[in-house]
């Protein structure tokens, strides 16, 4: 097993190349001998790209800065989990869906915080017992936004538009009842179309966009992916229907507005959660939570071209927060 980045005390590094991984592993041993840490945290990451390593970096730094304690952090790619690993971590932080599944195979004994995980995936894995949750000590900070937040910001951003269309796929269709309930509560007239295969996309879009004033996007592997993004954005633009999306990339690609949380924001929230946990271990881990911090990104080209006068993102965000969450 090729370890890992291990960072001791105040030192912090990002590792990308195998050589560096190895180097840091050796450093880890040396460091461990030098001084025993107060807390030992294992990060298990689905990938080793900037988003994930940046997450580890921010979480570790924030914890060290805010607690002043000696914290050892070990970062391990999900596919490197296996026999011979130590089991007595103070806490394990899982980054992403692949890491979450890998942990089940390894079956750790320490409490686990699942981060960067979609709420539906967490729920599904937990229900089907595919999630490691030793002694019921696990929780999650989802990557997705609560639907209430999406509805509130949408209502605030697009005053006067009440015909809301939602294109659903096999995964997002599970939220249909909740969507209907929220639409009723917030005064939207909701129209949904559910597709089961990508080839059903264009007819379904044509069907709902004819009457829609807004298209709310919810992540779904069939309905929304890199292949379908172009069709969705072009079709919606053709019907002059603004798209409300869930990622920064969507806003840049052509959605009028996107509401999302960055890995950095979720990392800060993770650090806060861990600080509370370490301060009072007896209380255990809190329940799963949505991101507290989020961004509202307006695509000015698109919104202007559609003749929309969207308030600035900060105003929308403040308005949404003001509504209470």
């Amino acid at each position, binding site marked *: 097993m090729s370890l890992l980045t291990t960072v001791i005390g105040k030192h912090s590094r990002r590792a990308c190349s195998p050589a560096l991984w190895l180097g840091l592993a050796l450093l880890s041993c040396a460091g461990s001998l030098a001084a025993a840490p107060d807390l030992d945290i294992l990060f298990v990451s689905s990938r080793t790209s900037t988003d994930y390593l940046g997450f580890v970096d921010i979480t570790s730094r924030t914890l060290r800065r805010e607690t002043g304690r000696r914290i050892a952090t070990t970062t391990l790619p999900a596919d490197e989990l296996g026999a011979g690993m130590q089991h007595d971590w103070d806490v394990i932080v899982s980054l*992403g869906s692949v890491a979450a599944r890998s942990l089940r195979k390894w079956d750790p004994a320490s409490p686990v915080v699942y981060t960067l995980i979609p709420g539906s995936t967490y729920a599904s894995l937990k229900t089907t017992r595919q999630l490691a949750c030793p002694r019921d000590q696990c929780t999650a900070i989802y990557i997705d936004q609560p639907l209430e937040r999406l509805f509130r910001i949408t209502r605030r951003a697009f005053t006067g538009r009440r015909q809301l269309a939602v294109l659903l796929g096999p995964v997002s269709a599970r939220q249909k009842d909740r969507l209907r309930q929220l639409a009723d509560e917030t005064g939207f007239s909701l129209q949904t179309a559910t597709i089961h295969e990508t080839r059903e996309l*264009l*007819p379904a879009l044509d069907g709902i966009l004819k009457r829609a004033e807004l298209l709310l996007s919810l992540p779904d592997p*069939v309905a929304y992916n890199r292949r379908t993004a*172009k069709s969705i954005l072009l079709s919606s*633009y053709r019907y002059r229907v603004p798209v409300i999306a869930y990622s920064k990339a969507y806003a840049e690609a052509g959605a009028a507005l996107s509401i999302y949380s960055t890995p950095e924001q979720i990392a800060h929230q993770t650090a806060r959660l861990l600080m509370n946990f370490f301060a009072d271990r007896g209380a255990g881990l809190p329940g799963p939570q949505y991101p507290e911090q989020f961004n509202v990104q307006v695509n000015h*080209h698109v919104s202007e071209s559609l003749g929309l006068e969207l308030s600035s993102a900060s105003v929308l965000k403040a308005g949404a927060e003001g509504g209470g969450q």
Partner: protein
Amino acid sequence: MFVSAPPSRTRVAAALGLLLPALTCAGSPPPLLSEQDWLDELPIVLSASRLPQPAENTPMATTIIDRQMIEASGFTEVPDLLRLAPGFIVNYENGYVQAVGYHMLIDRYSRQMQVLVDGRSVYEPALGGVPWTDLPLAIEDIERIEVIRGPNAASFGANSFTAVINIITRQAVLDQGLMTKINLGEQRMGEAYLRYGGSEGSLDYRVTAAYRENSGFDDRNDDMQVKLLTLRGDYQLGLNDSLMLQLGHNSGSKARDNVFDELVPEYTRQTYSQFQQLRWTHALSADNELTLQIYHNQNKDLNDYTTTPIVALGGVQVYTDARITSNRWDAEFQHILRPARPLRLIWGAGIRRDSVNAPLFFATGSDVENDSWRLFSNAEYRPHKRVLVNAGVMLENSDTGDTSVSPRASINYRFMPNHTLRLAASRAYRDPFVFEESPDYRFPLAIPNNVLLFDAGNIDPERITSLDIGYVGNFPAIHTSIDAKYFRERLDKLITYNNTPHPLGLDGKALFFSNDARARISGVELSASYRPNRANRFNISYTHLDIESDDRNNSGAFSDAGPDNMLNLLAIHEFGGGYSGSAGYYYLSSMKELESRGIRASQHRVDARLARHWSPGGRDITLALVVQNLFNDDEDTRLRNNIDRRVYGSIRIGIK
């Protein structure tokens, strides 16, 4: 505790293969979401260069004719669609030769406008103008037409003189599946469209084939049959790079009569046109995009005939070879960037070669060429949230027009929310086309005095200076938007031909081109759009023009070259249950008849369309009945090119 080693992939696949039918029956669990659905990057789909700006931000008055308007109008010819824009005059030389002018129209050649199809100029370089029915372009593939009402060489290049018509076809990804449409109607109208769109990996493609025929006008020998085939492929090379490839071919068989020249027999000519276009786009963000485009257009007019017996020459019949082949090769580079939030820049460069082979018009069997290059830049700066300043310039050099600088500047001031004033000034040049620059047109008989039109020396580019004050208002409470402009245009050095004594002239006289005409046009254009809901839409445009012109020998080429008043209306209503209806009204007051000095009376035209749409079993079916020129309001003109009432039915079936 560790789980045992995972089974090999093969075993998993095999197990899945056995389990799959059972799982499907039992309702297989859908795949789970991954955080990558939030974190993955996407290619830029709606980049700044692909989006039309809102009316209040455009540097020039702009009209957008969208797909809904195209369908509701019932028009089957692309130039007719321009009747929907204020200030545009559409007229017919015969059933298949249409002419479009902005404010003025004197002959069949739309020489003074730039016409682009997906960024490709379709201006014909030999005699000028746009051979509309020769274009490899199916009206069914058009997504929208952006009409820039005013000179805008700085943004759209050479020949963006009085206006720019920017035709944008649908991206291939939106036309997946099979579509067929058939129009059958009076005047032997028969049209069939067949389109198939598919995708292979990162490639989306569309193939469109069409056959069109009609018998033209009742009193003309102007039957037309056209076959066209176009292909568009959009290929996503990677996150930031995409390629667009388009190919097209059009072949036509077109009858010709002797309205203008009794020596011309009634015969049928063949036309062929084709194009190839490749565009690479490198989009780093919506504000930072590089494009490189190359294209080639070819137009062939296989127009040759033997005259009727010429009495003056003792009954001799003369073979006339009026065949024309023209080619245009063009390459252009463009970079859009936003170095700072309030500043947006576009700059680029292009080169072009026009090559024409037309022995009758140049008295040579060799190609006549015109090379040109251009540099252009445009800056959009917002010094204050209410103020948008736009400035652009194009530097252009061509063999026929030397070097010219076309500047444009505008300021948009939003004095109240939803209310914007625009002040715009622009200057542009129209380079002489090859025939204007170096004509040598002779009667095709080997006699000494056979000159019909000769080269009288250098011809300068035509020049337009335009000033307009515009207002754009949105009234959301009453679902109405208004676009108004008052304009003054000075057109100088306009090119016309005149008669002069010539020793080798056919009757001791010959024609020559000169820059002696000029025109002053002023007027107002008003457009309003009312869209109370999705089921109703109402567009209206009114134009008033005053043209003053003077030219050599008082030939009056430009006097009455436009109507005093124009009005167009388009109303669209959805009745529910898939039924929809629309009606258009188009009015032009009296103006000069096309290709002649005569004046024609005012024209009124009413078109109506009733359609039903339904979607049984995943198919889209639309049935429509269209009546053009409902009240059969026509008149006798020299050209006899009146559009009689025509009824046609249409069925469209889409299978996705």
